[in-house]
């Protein structure tokens, strides 16, 4: 093989390894890999710039702005207090409410923001009333990742695929929603069975019930002292609501998703100009994530130029004549890889591969299921280990900072069996879809 093929692949694989082991900041690694590809002449600068999917970046940035303004409105704190109040100190209700709220929020905000807000509160709340917060936090981490799989904006991998394939918001809800919902419900039931001792009702345990209510009162009091601005919160949620409605009717509006999100972000910044400054909001955006994506897009373009991804696509398409088997191969292989690796570079790399497979299988029905197999595998599979999904990495890190350490195997003991259940459900779902 000639150097023009080998070198970009080597740069990509080397960068990929450094990203997996987090040797340096992953944005720095991705940008360095991208710069090397351009500097060594394997990719023209114009091609590199073209490779950056600015629509994805704009969509992510706009959603981050909307979420940041909502976070500042204190609405999420209010929601937490109300949820705690509603739970009445009952461990199962607390578990149920928090476990259901987390994936819903993750589907429309983003997993990291949801984790950043929910995990510290859950630990404080559950530990405060004298329970072990581990099962509650673990469930939240797993559910945040599952919930994020349901929408185009819930997980970065979904956004990247959604924009690349021009699928709309409704396509994601309709195709990913049913299996995500089933996975959440099955996981809740399994959690309840496994952790029955910790989740059973306490209505006849005066001591525990009293401690729960003291803590709920404290949360209420703390919240009241925050000077919650109702108008601020209402306006912020209204903008988010309108943006999501915009996503739902995108095909009617015929406007790119990123533009709808940008309109929402600008609208919220205009409406809240007295409460938040553009400068302070922009300061809190995850800039390193954008640079990571840019580097990644460029590196994948470099590898794509070598033609290797077409070869892999060809190989996959011809590895079996059965689409069903191919779907299962993609689902489970992307799940296993996502358990061990960062799923974002993997999915980004797989986009041209899946396009190539689709081209090879042109004319066959249900080839769109390949995308759902890839995403279900990547997002749900990421839940298999503590390092597989961004939500898990951030969630366990926050938990550790709050004195709740998860060991790799301690996490795996719960996450792997539950993930296997979710993946089995996904397999059944994909196979069922091929028959419909």
């Amino acid at each position, binding site marked *: 093989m000639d150097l023009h093929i080998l070198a970009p692949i080597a740069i990509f694989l080397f960068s990929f390894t450094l990203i997996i082991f987090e040797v340096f900041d992953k944005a720095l690694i991705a940008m360095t890999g991208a710069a090397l590809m351009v500097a060594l002449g394997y990719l023209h600068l114009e091609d590199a710039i073209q490779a950056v999917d600015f629509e994805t970046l704009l969509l992510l940035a706009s959603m981050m702005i909307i979420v940041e303004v909502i976070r500042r409105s204190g609405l999420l704190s209010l929601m937490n207090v109300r949820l705690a109040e509603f739970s009445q100190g009952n461990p199962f209700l607390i578990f149920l409410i928090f476990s259901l709220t987390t994936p819903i929020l993750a589907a429309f905000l983003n997993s990291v923001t949801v984790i950043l807000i929910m995990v510290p509160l859950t630990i404080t709340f559950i530990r405060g*009333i004298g329970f072990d917060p581990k099962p509650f936090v673990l469930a939240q981490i797993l559910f945040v990742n599952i919930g994020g799989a349901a929408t185009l904006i819930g997980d970065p991998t979904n956004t990247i695929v959604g924009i690349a394939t021009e699928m709309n918001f409704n396509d994601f809800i309709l195709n990913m929603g049913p299996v995500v919902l089933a996975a959440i419900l099955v996981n809740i039931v399994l959690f309840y069975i496994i952790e029955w001792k910790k989740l059973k009702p306490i209505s006849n345990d005066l*001591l*525990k019930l009293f401690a*729960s209510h003291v803590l*709920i*009162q404290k949360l209420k009091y703390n919240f009241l002292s925050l000077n919650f601005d109702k108008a601020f919160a209402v306006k912020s949620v209204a903008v988010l609501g309108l943006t999501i409605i915009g996503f739902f009717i995108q095909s009617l509006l015929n406007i790119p998703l990123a533009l709808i999100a940008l309109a929402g972000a600008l609208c919220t910044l205009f409406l809240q100009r007295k409460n938040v400054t553009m400068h302070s909001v922009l300061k809190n955006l995850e800039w390193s994530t954008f640079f990571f994506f840019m580097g990644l897009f460029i590196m994948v373009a470099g590898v794509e130029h070598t033609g290797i991804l077409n070869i892999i696509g060809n190989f996959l398409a011809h590895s079996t004549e059965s689409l069903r088997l191919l779907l299962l191969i993609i689902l489970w292989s992307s799940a296993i890889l996502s358990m061990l690796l960062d799923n974002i570079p993997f999915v980004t790399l797989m986009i041209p591969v899946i396009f190539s497979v689709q081209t090879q299988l042109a004319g066959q029905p249900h080839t769109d299921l390949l995308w759902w197999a890839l995403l279900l595998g990547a997002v749900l599979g990421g839940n298999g280990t503590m390092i597989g999904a961004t939500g898990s990495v951030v969630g366990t890190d926050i938990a550790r900072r709050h004195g709740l350490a998860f060991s790799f195997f301690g996490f795996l003991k719960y996450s792997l069996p539950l993930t296997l259940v979710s993946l089995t459900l996904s397999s059944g779902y994909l196979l069922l879809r091929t028959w419909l």
Partner: protein
Amino acid sequence: MNQYIETLSNLFRTIEHDLGTRDLNNLTLQAFRTTIRQTKMDSLHEFCEKFKELLLAIKSTQPRFAIIIEHFYRLYTFIFELTEKHPDMPWHQAKEKLIHHISELEKEDRREKKQLLEQAKKIQAEGKTILIFDHSHTVQDALALLWREGQRFQVVVAEQDIEKTETIIEALARNNISFQVVPSYMLSHVEEQIDILFFGAVTFKSDDNFVMDPGSAAIIAEFHLHKKPTYMFMTTSKFALWQAQPRHGVFSHRHTRKHTQKPIFFERLKFSHDRVPLHFFTHIVTETGIVSPSAFKKIYKDKYAERKKWQALLVL
């Protein structure tokens, strides 16, 4: 049980630190009312047995919060009388009576505080400079009342933990009371300027010490040397009606802190409260009047004797 006591201790400690003792008590009573609403019991007798466990846990928290113990004793007396008079009362009926009684306790508590503030009106603060330090809501309310009554004075806030100092500042600003803030360790520079000192406390113990915000002891001792009139504001429901423990019973928090700029780690100790002798104060403002330390001690002794009688009766 031990884990539960630890949980409760942590909760009480953090709430008291954030809100003060009286609000901690109010919050505890509100929480207990909701607890009763949701608790499922077969009989009043079963509830009574479980309440005994709860009272025992509340009595065992570290530190012990006298005002909460006092209110839960009052509740227990009520439950005890209820079980004596109506042993067969169905739980749902007893529940309603208990909820009503909690509301009565809350009203009584508000009445007590109102009476204390009425007594505070007698203080001549006109033209004086008053030093305050702790985040006692009673002291803040007394200052606000005196100001509303037309007395004009200057307040000096001895600075401590930023959260607590800010709570005090907010209260003074809300009531348009003029004030200055001086770091606690620089108070020696304003000794001459200070006329009187106002303090609140968590409790008063059988060893004649008030339990107060950490840092209070040094300030009070310093101004005691200069014979400055020092007022304590406290209702008698805050009395610790049990035998005081030796000094090592004070709760401390040990943690490691890093130098802000250099990689130096050091051990840091924080204490939850100070103990300040009764004789360091010149006046104690209670709901029954402004009394001298010796008169205050007598009130305490009478209440303690009464509590001992209760305890014998309730067979806890």
